[in-house]
């Protein structure tokens, strides 16, 4: 237990404050009770997707757009899973729980575990469970605290965009696909202009078409910095 706690301490330091930020934002931006934030932490358990869902719920986005946006936002998990395929020997509900809760942080802790022992398989799902507990705790605390306070909404309106701008910058730092990202910005702006209400779904479809065309023609890849 002690080893589990010391292994997951860095995750606690990240998850509890971030979860609290989610909880506060959730109850101050949306007309729902605190326990809905807890429900999200329990059933969705994905940081950026939960933050995005605050915006989606506020806009009363349709469920198809919600599904497409959350799926593609989290699509990076597909590639974590692919790299864990051969290593994951757990069976039964533990296996499926680990897959359900495979966040960026759990993935990086699990892949950093020593390879040898059978006991590590148990470490894998225990680490994951403790990590989710930190997240549920953070989200719930934030939502409870957020209920009592009145925060000026003007400043909070930019928290969500700022989170995505941060993620954008970090993507650029790694992938360096300026051309592709500018083209995506063009598509997004066009979709806002013409299909305001369905902007998200339309721009996702157009962007995937752009990616497939780019894949076929090999253009823009030269700017990727590989």
């Amino acid at each position, binding site marked *: 237990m002690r080893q589990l706690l010391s292994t997951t301490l860095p995750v606690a330091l990240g998850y509890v404050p971030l979860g609290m930020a989610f909880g506060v934002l959730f109850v101050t931006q949306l007309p729902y009770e605190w326990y809905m934030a807890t429900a999200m932490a329990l059933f969705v358990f*994905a940081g950026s997707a939960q933050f995005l869902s605050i915006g989606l719920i506020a806009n009363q986005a349709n469920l198809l757009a919600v599904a497409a946006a959350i799926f593609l936002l*989290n699509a990076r998990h*597909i590639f974590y899973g692919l790299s864990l395929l051969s290593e994951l020997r757990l069976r039964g509900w533990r296996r499926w729980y680990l897959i359900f809760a495979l966040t960026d942080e759990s993935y990086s802790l699990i892949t950093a575990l020593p390879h040898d022992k059978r006991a590590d398989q148990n470490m894998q799902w225990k680490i994951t469970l403790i990590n989710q507990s930190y997240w549920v705790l953070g989200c719930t605390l934030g939502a409870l605290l957020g209920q009592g306070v009145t925060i000026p909404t003007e400043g909070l309106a930019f928290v969500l*965009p700022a989170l995505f*701008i941060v*993620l954008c910058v970090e993507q650029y730092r790694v992938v360096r696909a300026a051309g592709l990202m500018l083209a995506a910005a063009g598509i997004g702006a066009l979709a806002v202009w013409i299909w305001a209400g369905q*902007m998200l779904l339309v721009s996702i479809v157009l962007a995937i078409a752009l990616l497939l065309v780019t894949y076929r023609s090999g253009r823009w890849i030269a700017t990727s910095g590989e």
Partner: protein
Amino acid sequence: MDSYIWGVILVSALATFATRALPFLVLGRYTQHPLLKFLGRYLPPVMMVLLVIYATASLAVDLPGLAQVLLATLSVALLQWYFKNPLLSIFIGSLVYALLL
């Protein structure tokens, strides 16, 4: 109202689980497929750009609003680029946005 948010939670949970379970259910055979590798690299930056625009669209409905969003966006991006501290970038960016009102 309540059924809508439960719908969002259900759909979000399923969509997130799908991204985590797909490799274990079907995609395992295609680990080395070039299209999958290509999407793994380029889909995330493209999605982030779209989400920035989606999240700011309702704030930039007129010219002053657009200028305010662009300035706040620029400050978040520059802070993140140079200091690599997400909480700092988000906090100061939101402050810049609020002060420009």
